[in-house]
């Protein structure tokens, strides 16, 4: 960013006190662009939201950049262009994201109730759904058994994967030199590529060997999910540990703090926000898995609160079966409603976990300049 690359400022102005557009220019250009976008869109064969948005944004980006380029110089113009692009990217991304969330909330609220959260599907049949649609019987059947299963299975999977994953990333970043570390790095990458159904079949085969043919329970499901979760935990925490500045470590060593204490007291707390985010991401990655859970944890419509014996339901399996194989083919709406409500529940659960992870990260993270 040497001064020499800057285009010559207008005569008489120094490089520090060059021309500046008034602060309100951006807002003004935005308003004008929106108006122009609406006009142009109406001009080109009828008004539509899409063409209106596209034209407005284009108009804004071009006008704002050119204006700034003429008055303020190329560097400022580039900065404004990028700022515009970043906002645009954010705006574009919001559309599908908001739409997905809206779909889930809108459709999910239809059947979301305390009753839905606290009852199972035991003995509910398509006949009940038909009667509920006709209004001759109340709507029954909830996702309690699936919510319980998801909590237990995902919780167990987290208990298995987070220590293994975090310790591995500590090993890779702080201790690992040589062939073993290289091999682990390499194979963790390989592990991210395991198709989820393969993880499920592997866990099912493992439990068949260890505990007898046909063993399916919540714990087997947790093992299958761990296979999928560990690489995500390793990969994200490794990245977070790596960017902890070396100065911090060196300062600790200089004070005579043992290495393990440095890691536990300095390195990990510095990276805790990122690690927590990574763990949440890993949980989020597996909490929606369907196929590996059906082959390992089974499929049931009854409540089971022991993850170490008998089949257990999970929310994604519940969503999938209600959405793709409605209880009553002729009146599928109650089943679809249940699927959406269960999806909403799943998101709320992750939201809760996320919130907790963030709170904890903030409580324990060292104070920084930010």
């Amino acid at each position: 960013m040497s001064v020499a690359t800057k285009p010559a400022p207008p005569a008489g102005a120094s490089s520090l006190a060059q021309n500046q557009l008034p602060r309100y220019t951006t807002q003004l250009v935005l308003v004008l662009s929106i108006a122009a976008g609406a006009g142009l869109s109406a001009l080109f064969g009828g008004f539509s939201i899409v063409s209106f948005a596209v034209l407005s944004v284009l108009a804004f980006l071009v006008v704002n950049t050119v204006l700034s380029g003429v008055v303020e110089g190329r560097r400022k113009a580039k900065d404004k262009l990028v700022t515009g692009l970043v906002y645009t990217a954010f705006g574009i991304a919001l559309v599908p994201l908001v739409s997905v969330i809206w779909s889930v909330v809108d459709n999910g609220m239809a059947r979301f109730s305390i009753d839905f959260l606290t009852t199972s599907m035991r003995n509910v049949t398509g006949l009940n759904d038909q009667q509920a649609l006709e209004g001759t019987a109340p709507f029954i059947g909830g996702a309690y058994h699936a919510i319980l299963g998801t909590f237990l299975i995902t919780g167990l999977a987290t208990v298995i994967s987070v220590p293994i994953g975090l310790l591995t990333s500590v090993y890779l970043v702080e201790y690992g030199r040589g062939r073993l570390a290289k091999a682990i790095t390499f194979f963790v990458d390989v592990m991210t590529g395991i198709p989820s159904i393969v993880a499920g079949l592997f866990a099912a085969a493992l439990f068949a060997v260890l505990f007898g043919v046909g063993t399916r329970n919540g714990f087997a499901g947790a093992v299958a999910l761990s296979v999928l979760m560990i690489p995500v935990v390793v990969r994200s925490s490794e990245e977070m540990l790596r960017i902890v500045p070396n100065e911090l470590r060196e300062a600790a060593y200089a004070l005579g703090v043992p290495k393990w204490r440095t890691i536990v007291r300095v390195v990990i707390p510095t990276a805790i926000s990122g690690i927590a985010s990574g763990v949440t991401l890993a949980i989020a990655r597996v909490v929606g898995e369907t196929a590996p859970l059906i082959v390992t944890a089974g499929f049931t419509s009854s409540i089971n609160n022991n993850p170490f014996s008998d089949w257990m339901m999970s929310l994604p399996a519940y969503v999938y079966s209600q959405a793709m194989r409605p209880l009553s083919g002729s009146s599928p709406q109650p089943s679809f409603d249940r699927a959406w409500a269960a999806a909403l529940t799943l998101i709320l659960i992750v939201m809760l976990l996320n919130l907790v992870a963030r709170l904890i990260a903030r409580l324990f993270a060292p104070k920084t300049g930010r």
Partner: protein
Amino acid sequence: MTTTEPPPTERPAVARRPKTRPGDRIFSRSAQVAGILILVILAGVAAFLVREALPTFTADPSEIDGGKGFFSYVWPLVFGTLAAAVIALIVATPLALGIALFISHYAPRRLAQGLGYIVDLLAAIPSVVFGLWGIQWLAPQVQPAWGWLADNLGFIPLFSGPASATGRTMMTAGLVLAVMILPIITAVSREVFLQTPTLHEEAALALGATRWEMIRMAVIPFGRPGIISGIMLGLGRALGETMAVAMVLSTGGFTWSMVTAGNNTIAAEIALDFPESSGLKTNTLIAAGLVLFAITLAVNMFARWIVSRRSEFSGAN
């Protein structure tokens, strides 16, 4: 493999400790054991995969699905897998980086935290929901666009018509995947952007850099390995995603066109055919899974190679 951990020799600047403390020994050993455990798990998975896939390679080619052997069965699937993932990455990467920068360096702090939270949340939406959303909302919205592409750019093989009547094409599947991996790439990049040393940023600004110049010179180089890691995690999900693709894509035989029905991905093929398959077909599907495994492996090796070329920016080295 190393069995005894050597004392830290890589840091000449730090005084070497003559005696190893028990705390250090226990900690480093348990970290090492965790790493080795991962290798053991993976070896187990690999052994299982190979054992299950083996009959496919020894079987008579005419018995494999399609009757022309495993290779001709799997290559259209490989093409479909890569096509969907590439579309997803092309769409999602710039957007994700934009959002990450927005959250880390542009948005007001209070808003930024809320936004980061929402984005993380999106990673948790089950793929079935993305599938339903893709069919019910996205496909009808984008169908006219594919029709336009087929009409006006149809001379390019990728857009040759006729466009699908329901909009459930490879392009749509790629878009759904893009939305799915957006939160992953965003979350990882955002975290590394936020970790950029404040001193670097302030130094750049103090030298008169504009915000973009500061980002380009301080934030992006620092975050590059993290960005690539995030992209790779996203790519991993895009390559391996099953249900969303299976539900959105109107699968079929190989075609170059991305705007008609047709093509399929490995993961979706496994999800769609595994439940009802038996005998050799099961083995074939698992062998396809093995191929997916190999693709992910190659992609990750490539990413590692890029990161290692840039490793001078990594703080821990």
